[in-house]
């Protein structure tokens, strides 16, 4: 039932101790929101799950991070396969300067898929799941850069879905979007929950309370409180959580 289990995770950038003794569990097909002030380590934590932090040379970590029962940081872990299983959507919509079709097909192609019919079908399915098919079906060969910010972000979600992942990590996916696009993405998250496990970092309290089932509050590299979202937002147990979500925290 537990999709991700984290025990005593510590991470470092050079000498800086970023995440301190993180313990964290995510159930399958749920949405978990990570909240906390800037620099509290929530993005670092998110990027630890699909090992995006490996791109930073000074990154080190210890502790265990299990996806299902596999240790993500085990030496025999195939990072390429891990990132296929744990997709990521970034803060700024980042479609490649390619056609809409090629953007979604990218993941399939890099993983060696050559059957064009299959790719075509998968691209269509992914665009439909990301609720953007109707808007782009007539211009699949046009560049993705011509889409609006909200469409670009949904395209990026489609691109991630095309890889058929098990977990989707979202790093402030709406921070660059207008309110309407934001709501569309949030609706999409609700839909995607049925098939995927989602972890979302957000600075928007209302967004966290709207989209997530569980919420974890990070502060200075530690998890202060985790729990069901209603409980965190209506009657938090910890004083620090209360201060942060009510805005009494500077």
């Amino acid at each position, binding site marked *: 039932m537990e999709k991700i289990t984290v025990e005593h995770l510590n991470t470092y950038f050079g000498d800086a101790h970023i995440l301190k003794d993180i313990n964290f569990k995510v159930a399958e097909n749920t949405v978990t929101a990570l909240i906390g002030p800037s620099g509290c380590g929530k993005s670092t934590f998110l990027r630890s799950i*699909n090992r*995006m932090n490996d*791109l930073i*040379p000074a990154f080190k970590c210890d502790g265990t991070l299990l996806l299902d029962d596999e240790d993500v940081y085990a030496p025999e872990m195939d*990072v*390429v*396969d*891990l*990132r*296929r299983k744990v*997709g*990521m959507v*970034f803060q*700024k919509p*980042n*479609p*490649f*300067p*390619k056609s809409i079709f090629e953007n979604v097909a*990218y*993941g399939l*192609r*890099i*993983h060696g898929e050559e059957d064009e019919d299959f790719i075509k079908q998968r691209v269509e399915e992914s665009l439909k799941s990301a609720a953007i098919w109707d808007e782009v079906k007539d211009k699949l060969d*046009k*560049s*993705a*850069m*011509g*889409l609006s910010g909200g469409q670009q972000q949904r395209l*990026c979600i489609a*691109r*991630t879905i095309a*890889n058929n992942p098990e977990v989707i990590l979202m790093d402030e996916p709406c921070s660059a979007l207008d309110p309407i696009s934001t709501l569309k993405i949030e609706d999409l998250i609700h839909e995607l929950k049925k098939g995927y496990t989602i972890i979302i970092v957000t600075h928007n309290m209302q967004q966290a309370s709207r989209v997530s089932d569980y919420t974890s509050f990070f502060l200075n590299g530690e998890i202060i409180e985790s729990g069901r979202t209603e409980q965190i937002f209506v009657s938090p147990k910890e004083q620090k959580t209360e201060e942060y979500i009510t805005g009494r925290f500077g």
Partner: protein
Amino acid sequence: MNFNFISAKISQKIMNSIFLLSGIITLTILVIILAYILIKGLPVINLEFIFGQVENQGASGGIFPIIVSSLYVTLLSVLISTPLGVGAAIYMVEYANDGKLTRIIRFGAEILASIPSIVYGLFGLSFFVIFLNLGWSIFSASLVLAIMGIPTIFQVSEVSIRSVPSIYVEGSYGLGATKWQTIYKVVLPAALSGIVTGIILGMTRAISEAAAVMYAVGSSITMPISILDPGRPLPLHLYILATEGISLPNAFGTAAVLVIIVLIITFLTNYFTERYQNKMMGK
């Protein structure tokens, strides 16, 4: 410094005019040079001049073998220098950590770019022509020009690859792409227009070089067929026509052809990269 004696509004106006003036002067110089060469050269140019064989050491006849040598040398040198320059740029951005080695490589490229071309020519003569025994040939000249072109292509490509937004790279890694897939499928296409600019700069430098090739290419006025045949590119022909007083009008004709070729290369590549860029960026 204190410019209080002039009001801000007036000083702004003065500076505006100064900048406008420098712009106009630059443009004027370009127009004058182009016009001068074209006015002097164009009357000489006709089909016979372009497609004819060289006669009387260039005093009469055409310059067809010269044009062919020029294109031959230039294309060959670009073929050699592009993979090396772009490859080095990729290494610098994607593989090397910022450290001593990258600083040395960058410094080396700057030195290489600032060596006078006649020195390259001398090196080409002693190393390629004599030591490697390649003889006076298109190939020797291309190698010399390639070495000259590498720093330009390298420097421009590095800047252009470095300016590819890191969010593209992250997005690609995030989908499980390997480093090479990311470079090949995302970084290079996104940096393409910059890289092409570097190649054009290298190419225009190669096509307009006389000093570097004069010791390496020989001075044959016959049509070069194989890469080991000697040749005589346009700038060298121009140099010989002018310095040996063979035919000043033909020298201007050759110059005009050279300028037109350079202009065509620049316009065409600009047009195509812009079109590609616009298509990719969805404009």
